């Protein structure tokens, strides 16, 4: 069986006055049904642009310049607007960091949810409303029959995010793109949302791309992890492998930057410098200027190397393998 989502050589560039911004510059990954991919990177690494590209939400001056995105075997790059509109919301849903991006403040939750259902399916209003209520119940909103009459501002941040997730689930999509869905929430609420998402993925077999800067969150939910840096995936593999045994120095640096992994009070092993501007990328490895292990040969484009089963790193000299347990 072919994969649910297959992204090959995707390049999304923005033609700005300052020059060509190569926000996503050649990424590949595949996703099977029921699989959760964690897409990790810092601000500006291109992780959000990558997920927007899948949905066909790149506006000028941005453009998918190269590559292919196959969803259930269908090519999405260059697909007609009408076709993308059919897919969006029905087959591929998105959950944003800020639920107010999904919700309009001036309509009741009920109106927004029913409208979403009727946009894709010919069902009665009554049936649509019943489905909306059952989905709200599934994401853990108490007394959904009453709460569906509320406006978004009457919900707390965590509840609003649940509503946004409920809207994403209305059509039981095959793929959910979640862009930092818990970043704006408190830890206890974040825990609740992750628990709901884990349950939903297990129950419905929905595949998910979980975009986040937080490796710890990604580790709890993802099967595979792809680490992005300056528009490219620099490491990709099973999440336990990537996080437990990183092969790319950038992944190692990210992990070492997390305070709870170092003895309290010790200096953190910081990555020096800043992420490069995607306007002026060095010809070789974009991470080389910040890399502890950089050698002169890093000035040439780094090759993709496999360090384990399904575990790749875009690095000339992947970190030596520790004794694998």
């Amino acid at each position: 069986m072919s994969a649910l989502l297959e992204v090959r050589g995707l390049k999304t560039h923005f033609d700005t006055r300052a020059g060509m911004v190569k926000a996503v510059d050649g990424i590949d990954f595949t996703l099977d049904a029921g699989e959760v991919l964690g897409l990790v990177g810092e601000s500006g690494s291109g992780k959000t642009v990558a997920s927007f590209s899948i949905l066909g939400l790149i506006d000028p001056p941005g453009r998918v310049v190269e590559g292919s995105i196959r969803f259930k075997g269908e090519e999405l790059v260059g697909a007609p607007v009408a076709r993308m509109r059919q897919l969006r919301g029905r087959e591929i849903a998105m959950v944003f960091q800020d639920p107010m991006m999904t919700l309009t403040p001036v309509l009741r939750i009920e109106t927004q949810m029913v409208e979403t259902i009727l946009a894709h399916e010919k069902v009665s209003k009554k049936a649509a409303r019943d489905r909306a209520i059952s989905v709200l119940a599934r994401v853990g909103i108490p007394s959904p029959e009453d709460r569906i009459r509320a406006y978004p501002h009457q919900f707390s941040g965590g509840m609003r995010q649940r509503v946004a997730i409920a809207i994403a689930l209305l059509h039981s999509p095959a793929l959910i793109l979640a862009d930092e869905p818990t970043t704006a929430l408190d830890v206890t609420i974040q825990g609740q949302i992750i628990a709901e998402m884990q349950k939903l993925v297990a129950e419905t077999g929905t595949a998910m791309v979980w975009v986040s800067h937080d490796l710890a969150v990604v580790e709890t939910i993802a099967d595979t992890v792809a680490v992005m840096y300056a528009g490219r995936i620099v490491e990709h593999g099973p999440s336990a492998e990537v996080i437990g045994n990183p092969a790319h120095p950038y992944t190692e640096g990210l992990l070492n930057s997390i305070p709870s992994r170092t003895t309290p009070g010790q200096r953190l092993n910081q990555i020096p410098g800043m992420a490069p501007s995607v306007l002026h990328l060095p010809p070789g490895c974009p991470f080389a200027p910040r890399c502890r292990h950089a050698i002169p040969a890093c000035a040439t484009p780094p090759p993709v190397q496999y360090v384990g089963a399904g575990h790749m790193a875009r690095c000339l000299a992947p970190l030596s393998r520790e004794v694998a347990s």
Partner: protein
Amino acid sequence: MNVPHVALRDVSKIFTRKPDFAERLAIRLGLPKPPVLRAVDGVSLEVNHGEALGLVGESGCGKSTLGRIVAGVHGKSGGEFRFEGKEEAGWTAEDARRARLDIQMIFQDPMSSLNPRKRIADIIGEAPVVHGMVARADRETAVAELMQEVGLDPGYARRFPHQFSGGQRQRIGIARALAVQPKFLVCDEAVAALDVSIQAQVLNLFMDLRERRGLTYLFISHDLGVIEHLTDRVAIMYLGRIVEVGPTPEIFRKPAHPYTQALLDEAPRVGRGRRVYVPLKGELPSPLAPPPGCRFHTRCPHVMPVCKTTAPDLKPVAPGRIAACHLNDTTEQEE
């Protein structure tokens, strides 16, 4: 005896809204007054010289308000505030000036706390000149030294805040706070908005500064990893009250309050692997109408009848540790 750097006793902060015309009329006709928001409700806390104290809690628990009271941004509504042993009510003008200069604040979002129309040299250099710490003629060198200390290139002194990245802006905010030679820094979510690798750089800077200048920190954060790494002691807040205080390593090893336990369980940490969450139910109740008894009882997995009626006091549970939970009165016999 050791005098704490800053000591709070029974400090409260109440926010009220001025009633509008209709409400004033309604109150005069005998209707009840609108509820007041007790953001901080009877908090006692001591921060010792050279110590890093962490303040943890969810949004809306009052941790930022408490930090602002310490930094003098907000006045308190009740209670005592002592700076180096002197109560605020008895301060002379000189005492007040010293306390305000000695305690500086670093904010979460450097973009909204730096004046976008001022150059870095003015942002950093203005306060020490005004307070007579640096002669106007020496301002440039003083600014250059400060920029160097926080890891900025002094050549950028003529630039504006928008020309810097987030991490650099946070360094500007730190340099500005350090310019008046404070002894005490209140850091309100100072690294929350930064990327992991930049966050590590700024945390290292905080640790270096502490060593170099012997600073005292009140470090407010929701990120338990940051708190564990940086602080000696930690105070956990819930709905305006402190529920637990103690040495950081001990609290992280064995919390004495179910809320602390829940926070620790739910903070995702790298290396735990994939796991199924058993999250805490419910949300923070509205601080406008806090639940009676123990404020945590609506979400607590160990709730008992007494929790719904009687608020637990902060009691010692171990040397240097206090917690407010009825469970601590009973569990000792059980375990």
